[in-house]
């Protein structure tokens, strides 16, 4: 669905369907948003057990109250440089069919972004992958990159599968 919308950037795309509450967080100066419905919980950075033979951004697994769930470092996933974990580093547990933790620099706030505040992602050239961007949320003077987290993590799954 999203793909269809995104490929239709020039035309009469309706992004108002994406209006709603977003959890915003930052990654290396950039600000992102994540549909609140996908978020299960936010926890501080904790001990991660590395799993071998995984792509670099798959940091390993954690114990979420008895459940073993994978953790993905979003910086590495987006091709940014890894940063040292600080007090502010958080794991956002998202539900994409299964639970997955994503590591982000800082969690900011929950914003209500209306449909008319969302613009389609601008064409950024071939070097930037925009397929997992829902749209650009304009809040006051700032722009939040709204993520389609299902797509973000699905692609990661596909990547992992290729390594067999």
């Amino acid at each position, binding site marked *: 669905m999203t793909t269809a919308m995104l490929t239709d950037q020039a035309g009469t795309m309706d992004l108002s369907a994406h209006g709603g509450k977003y959890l915003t967080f930052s990654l290396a100066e950039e600000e992102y948003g994540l549909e609140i419905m996908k978020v299960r919980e936010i926890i501080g950075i904790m*001990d991660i*057990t*590395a*799993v*071998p*033979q*995984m792509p670099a951004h*798959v940091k*390993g*697994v*954690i*114990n979420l*109250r*008895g*459940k*073993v*769930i*994978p953790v993905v470092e979003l910086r590495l996933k987006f091709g940014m440089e890894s940063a040292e974990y600080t007090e502010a580093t958080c794991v956002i547990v998202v539900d994409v069919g*299964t639970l997955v933790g994503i590591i982000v620099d800082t969690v900011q706030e929950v914003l209500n972004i209306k449909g008319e505040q969302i613009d389609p992602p601008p064409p950024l050239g071939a070097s930037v992958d925009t397929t997992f961007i829902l749209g650009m949320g304009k809040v006051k003077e700032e722009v939040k990159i709204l993520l389609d987290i299902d797509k973000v993590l699905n692609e990661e*799954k596909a990547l*992992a*599968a290729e*390594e*067999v």
Partner: protein
Amino acid sequence: MANETNDNGSGPDRQELSAAIETLREAVKTELDANDLGRLAQMHTACQTLVALDGPVGEFSSALANLLEGIILKEAADADRGLTLIPQAVETIGNAVDGRDVDVEPLLIQIRAVTTSTPTPAPESMAAPEPATVEPEPTSAPAAPPGSPSATSEVTIEQYVAEPLVVDLDEREHLEGFIDESHEHMDAIEVALLEVENDPTNTDKINELFRPFHTIKGIAGFLNLRDINRLTHEMETILDLGRKNELRIIPETVDLFFSGIDALKEQIAKLANYLANPSGDVVPQPNIVAVMARLHATATGQAPPPATTTTPDATSEPTQAAAAPTTPAAASISPTPTSEAPASEPADDRGAAGGEGGATQVADTSIRVDTAKLDFLVDAVGELVIAQTMVNLSNVVSTDEKLTRDVSQVSKIVRDVQETAMAMRMIPIGQTFQKMRRLVRDVSRKAGKQVELKISGEDTELDKNVIQAIADPLVHMVRNAVDHGIETPEGRRDAGKPETGIVHLNAFHQGDSIVIEIRDDGKGLDRDKLIAKGIERGLISSGEQLSDQQVFGLVIQPGFSTAEQVTDISGRGVGMDVVKRNVEKLRGKIEISSELGRGSVFSVRLPLTLAIIDGMLIRLGTERLIIPTILIEQSLRPEAQQITHVQRKGTMIQVRGELITLIQLGPLFGFSGPIDPTEGSVVIALTETQKIGIVVDELIGQHQVVIKTLGERFKQAKGISGAAILGDGHVGLILEPTGLLALHSSSEVIIPISDTTNIAEIVEAAAELDDNGGSSEPQQQELTEDSSAPGVAEPEAALV
């Protein structure tokens, strides 16, 4: 008469009447089909309304209703012709109700003729020639004379024709419930049947057998499962005769019952398949004509059950014949021991049956719970235990005396809850064992052997999932024991053994595992033959010194072709490698011991539950990993001279004269650099094909861990089978040696080494080691002698 449709009296009012007529007229507008049960049933209801009318219309409607019922229940003598008569009949009724003068008599006779099986002379006005009304089943229905006197209402075999079964998917829930329930009943039937065979005059036992049949029959009738209903009906009839002493139950009768039960099982299996995956309108059904014919013939006393064995039992007395599994060979060679040996058995069996009976009563106090709920409970309790441990470890707790007391009280309760939750998934293995009785009986008869199955330890409890998974391997092993382990009666006599062989199934707890033993007193495994075969198959090399366990283990190796080894029928080991794989999937082991001429014992050692394993916790840098204890042969702190490097790529360790590949997890997993084996420890683990040595920094100790499977995302990680949550809440990965070896073989890790060693030195090193390798614990000896390596003074024996 026909006008008597006014509102007075108890008859139907005009409105109902015309609705009924309308229904009938509507229904016959298109050609009728015997399988269109909905339409037929609708017509039947309409007729019932009309039956209330007085006079010929009522009478006629009643006849039509009977015909429709006959067609619906597939009991009509000639359904096809009946169907062609219906439109005519509807017209006649219509006319009569409308007040026209009609002569219903000729048609009435015709309708009655096609409804019941008693052939009536064809009326003169018949358009089509009257077909043979009663056609005995042409195929394989031996000696079933036509025209059973038991006539109309009774289902008779002569009328039995396989009809397509149509089920209403709206009734799916009921049908599925029936399928579940009937499995239980059939298990009960098989057990009871064998008891009846041993003691055919015991009416209590026959009654016990009667009940499950009756239940199946009742429900099947309710659900319109016609074939199942009829099969059980016939068997019930035979049992009824049996308990009234009007029919003697002989082994052939029991055989016949087993055929009947097999037919039932097949029916139910087909139905289950259909429900799982409904395709088409009709449930595929096996042909039960032959078995129905035989059952019916027996039930009506018209023919003896056609015996599979044609040996006359004239030599033996009735009871003995019933008790002894009469194979032709047995009966003709020596009737005396045959009749004596089993004669003493029923007593044993009754003892076992008493236990069973007790179990049935216990079942009344139990409830059925969805296994998903149980699994959830076990998971939740696992989490509770982990959380509890974390609280216990907290520093705050130890500073407050009251808190410490309270926490330990909670710990105790949590442990109780955990035990109970685990116990809830445990069920006794008895039922699985009982199923083997039938198998032993069938296989032994087919193979012409006399085998007695002894069962003990049936109260031993196992995790439900384990029991399910072990059932098939058990069938394989029991069949092998009977087919290949036990000799023929002649063979046994020549060997000076009783002609009846014994297969003993036993289950018991041993430590944290459960052992299931299949013991036979047959010919045993021939060590020399196995070795010869093993060499031929390239599984072992000649001149190898092999322990008994290794030699006997060959029979469960894949690729150990079984064509003419050990026995000549099909060879022990049919599917034994499959058995091995299944057992290993359960993290179990098969141990075989055998003595030529005396028999063999196959022991399956299984963990009590699938959710928890015993593991050795190891440290690798900052990571902690778990190696399942069952896959560990030993762990040791190696000496420098035990280690050999090959072309700077591979490292080997020599343990008791054996060269074992060393695996460095750090580089292999990309966690860290290699560890100097002499500074750490080596865990010798078993893969499917060979041993490997895993180099670790430290052995932390043995732990029981709750297994958590890793998600899809991690399936492709080789050498990891899952994860477990450790006592402090950290996640530890569980290593899987076979995958590790595969990963190691495919990787190109170059191991930096300081000294130059080459392959030529291996021999030298080996020779050196052999000199001081005489004692059973050479590593330990060397360990204490060595003082150069740091950290070696730590006690190590406790960890091994």
